[in-house]
């Protein structure tokens, strides 16, 4: 029997088993096996239970991490699931796709040479396993009100908002233009990071809680926004950011140059067997692929192309390895799966006559910090080189894509196109139209799933207050 206070020294961090590279690059399944109950308990027991839980503070939704780790360690799975859902509407997804190395696990006290607690994998284990054993969120204390709220967008912000609303007795009706819920959770994030059954399970759970989904409905086209504001007591907008950032260099319009998101969506459509004429399948089989950009989307494109059987995948990023924003875990997995990384490279032109033949790059070095504090890459003169390519995927990030009817609805925007919302504690996330609230990427600019979840939940609190209801979490 080991000393429970010293378990972190006796038991090393052990991540769940990962599929071998040869297997995983042939399919789109998730690559991490689930923890067994024993492994989860043992790994959870490594938590020091710091009186100042840095993990909890770093977590955008402030999950009660040490507390549910303790419950897992004690084998109290359902209690852990209940607690986990008190702060997070989609814990099984966050457990899979959060960049834990930058958030909770990065902040873990044990991350200094001892090995952080594998918080993400345990978080995933809690909800997956609880669902498997038949657990459902406890709705027995919910008192139904006659209030109804329309939620536009079934992405993480919308789902989180609907979750908090329905737990407070408000009836949410979630509209989405796609045929499945999840937004980018379904159509952006590749299945090898988040299998779509997981999203389907969440839909089943949420419908069981009383959330109504109206899919294949594009607000503004299939139904007017005016009708939503008339029919519902409040409206929440969680519509994301979909305008892709352009490089602004020659050759971007050449055939064989693709935007990241349509590429990823087309692949998922194919995996899910969805027929979507607006996102025709883009196949990278036997192609030499160059992915421009080192963010999370870039990593997803890298690994999707590998799985499609690309001849080679090269990823370029204009700063150095340490500054690359993409999750460390995805970067490591990309490398394992055969992606070549070129750091300190900036594309200046996509070369080709009638279709892509290569990408012209210059070398960069890090200069002085820019206005946002990050060091700006400077071009090193005379370092141009061209690498051959049959296809180029541009993954430079996303900008807001506000629909034109916002103006009519008195929903004001920042100059950048982000929706302007209230920061006052009593009217959190209220737009300039008092009946309309907004959250997620369309408010903060493109960011993590967990930050969208947080804003959706906070906006739900604002909505509840505006409806004269007392929020209970």
């Amino acid at each position: 029997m080991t000393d429970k206070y010293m378990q972190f020294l006796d038991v090393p961090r052990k991540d769940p088993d990962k599929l071998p590279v040869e297997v995983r690059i042939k399919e789109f399944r998730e690559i991490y096996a689930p923890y067994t109950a024993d492994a989860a308990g043992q790994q959870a027991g490594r938590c020091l239970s710091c009186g100042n839980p840095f993990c909890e503070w770093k977590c955008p939704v402030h999950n009660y991490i040490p507390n549910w780790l303790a419950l897992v360690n004690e084998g109290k799975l359902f209690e852990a699931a209940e607690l986990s859902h008190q702060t997070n509407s989609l814990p099984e997804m966050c457990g899979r796709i959060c960049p834990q190395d930058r958030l909770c696990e990065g902040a873990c006290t044990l991350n200094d040479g001892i090995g952080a607690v594998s918080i993400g994998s345990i978080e995933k284990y809690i909800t997956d396993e609880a669902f498997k054993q038949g657990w459902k969120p406890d709705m027995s204390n919910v008192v139904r009100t006659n209030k109804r709220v329309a939620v536009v967008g079934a992405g993480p912000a919308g789902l989180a908002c609907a979750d908090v609303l329905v737990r407070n007795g408000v009836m949410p009706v979630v509209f989405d233009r796609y045929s499945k819920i999840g937004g980018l959770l379904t159509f952006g994030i590749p299945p090898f990071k988040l299998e779509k059954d997981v999203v389907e399970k969440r839909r089943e759970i949420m419908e069981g809680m009383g959330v109504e989904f109206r899919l294949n409905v594009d607000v503004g086209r299939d139904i007017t926004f005016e009708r939503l504001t008339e029919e519902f007591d409040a409206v929440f907008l969680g519509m994301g950011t979909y305008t892709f950032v352009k490089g602004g260099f020659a050759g971007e319009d050449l055939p064989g140059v693709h935007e990241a998101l349509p590429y990823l969506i087309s692949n998922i459509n194919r995996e899910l067997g969805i027929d979507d004429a607006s996102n025709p399948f883009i196949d990278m089989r036997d192609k030499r692929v160059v992915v421009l950009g080192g963010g999370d989307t870039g990593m997803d494109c890298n690994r999707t192309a590998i799985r499609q059987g690309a001849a080679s995948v090269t990823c370029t990023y204009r700063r150095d390895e340490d500054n690359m924003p993409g999750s460390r875990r995805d970067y490591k997995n990309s490398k394992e799966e055969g992606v070549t990384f070129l750091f300190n490279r900036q594309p200046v032109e996509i070369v080709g006559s009638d279709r892509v033949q290569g990408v012209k790059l210059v070398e960069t070095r890090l200069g002085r910090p820019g206005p946002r504090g990050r060091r700006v890459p400077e071009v090193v003169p005379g370092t141009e080189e061209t690498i051959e390519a049959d296809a180029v995927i541009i993954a430079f990030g996303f900008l807001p894509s506000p629909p034109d009817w916002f103006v009519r609805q008195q929903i004001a925007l920042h100059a950048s196109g982000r929706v302007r919302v209230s920061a006052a504690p009593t009217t959190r996330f209220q737009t300039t139209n008092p009946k309309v609230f907004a959250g997620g990427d369309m408010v903060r600019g493109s960011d993590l799933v967990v930050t969208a979840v947080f804003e959706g939940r906070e906006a739900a609190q604002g909505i509840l207050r505006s409806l004269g209801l007392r929020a209970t979490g």
Partner: protein
Amino acid sequence: MIGHRLKVARSASGLSLRGLADAMGGLVSAQAIGKYERNEDMPSSGVLIALAAALHVTEELVAEPGVGTVAAGVAKAYADLITISGYDGGTGASPLSSIKYAGTPWELGLAETHQTLRANELRHRVRLQTDGGLKTGLDVIKAALIGAESFGFGTAPMVALGCKYLRICHLNNCATGVATQHNVLRTKFFIGLPEMAMNYFKFVAQECREIMAALGVRTIAEMIGHTELLAILPGETPKQRKLDLKPVLANAGLVGAQPQFCTDPRNEPFDKGVLGEQMLRDMSGAIAGKTGGEFSYAVSNFHRSIGARISGEIAKRWGNNGMSASPLVVNLKGSAGQSFGVWNAGGLHLHLEGEANDYVGKGMAGGRIILKPHARSAFVARETIIMGNTCLYGATGGELYAAGTAGERFAVRNSGALAVVEGAGDHCCEYMTGGVVLVLGRTGVNFGAGFTGGFAYVLDMERDFVDRYNHQLIDIHRVSPEGMGTHVQHLRGLIEQHTDFTGSVWGIQLLNDFRTYIGKFWVVKPKAAAIDSLLVNLRRAA
């Protein structure tokens, strides 16, 4: 104190005693004011305010009877340094429940202490330190301005050495290796270097210098107590605006009159221990030669810690019990001051005819202390207190016989001394872990709380001891001649010794009718100890 200031203020206003009484609208008489001036009486707060109004002076802060009063007492007890510890900070050492909700801000305690010490003309004798969440140079400057000359830091330098404020210090598993005895954690995960703490303090000092330059002061000493350099902000919330912080910045009406910081090199005790030194001179030959001898002195209650000087010399030369075989017998007459026979060493026998104050035989290691009433005293010895509270505190050995009763908490933390008294106050034998205590009379309540070792005999004439002892850790048994012969013999032997040493009238009476009284004694022992083992263990310990 108040008297002098009142007189000065009255002279300044040109009022007679009667004039002042009239000016106060007859609230108090002229005679009463005269008493205040002679410090024979204290004005109530209402009268004080009326006095201040009549004399056209501000009724300056009269510090609440709190930490300032305690500090003044400590300063009078010759402390060289007083630390006022605030509730902020807490070195991360404790769980949240211990950090929150305990204590008050150091600003309040420090201000009160500084003012009280100055008002009582004690500030120059004692250094004043404050701590509790001090982190920056600004904190140091504020503490100096409110009255501190020394500044304690805990958390911040620890953080500089790698502490992450995990609040698990009490679990020994500190992953930063700061608050743990675990070898692996200390050697592999502690990253601290002395330079880190040095660096931190250099920053604090630098910030202090910058702020001092802005204030126009050159040294910390120039700033101490200069609360006029602090200004009160209006407060951001309605609650904050209701706070009256003026008392923190008040100066007890003593601007410039009294030193603001410690100027004495040491807070020397008033008591030079003259009698103790005299005794040592008289006995030094007997100690050096290990010859023993008999000496006689008169004592008074201002003679504190009598015997300690001799015990120290014996212990230094021969060890704690080195002179047991050739004792020094010291006959004393009178009323002994505090801590009579403190740290008594083997071979020192103090025979006091009279009475003693608190702490008789505190920390006693060996030897014998005998107390008996004055030969011509008219009172009944066994009903009269012969020594004060907390006697035999933490004694580890030796014997004490007293023909009279002891005060509260007799033999608290006794771990080896033998004692016979004729009655005791509340909490007798508290936390006792060893030794034997015989009480030949009534005890107070809560006898034997936390009692885990040794044993006691208690004579229970009123048959109510069962209601007076603490049932948590001890049980009691009647001493009966059948099957407890050794206890009966031991008990009788103790009473005989007591009678021999003290001439106790009550002891003689008990022995004369021992058969009657024996059935009224209880043996008190820890629940965990077997009754048969008590005397065996006692012999083994001896």
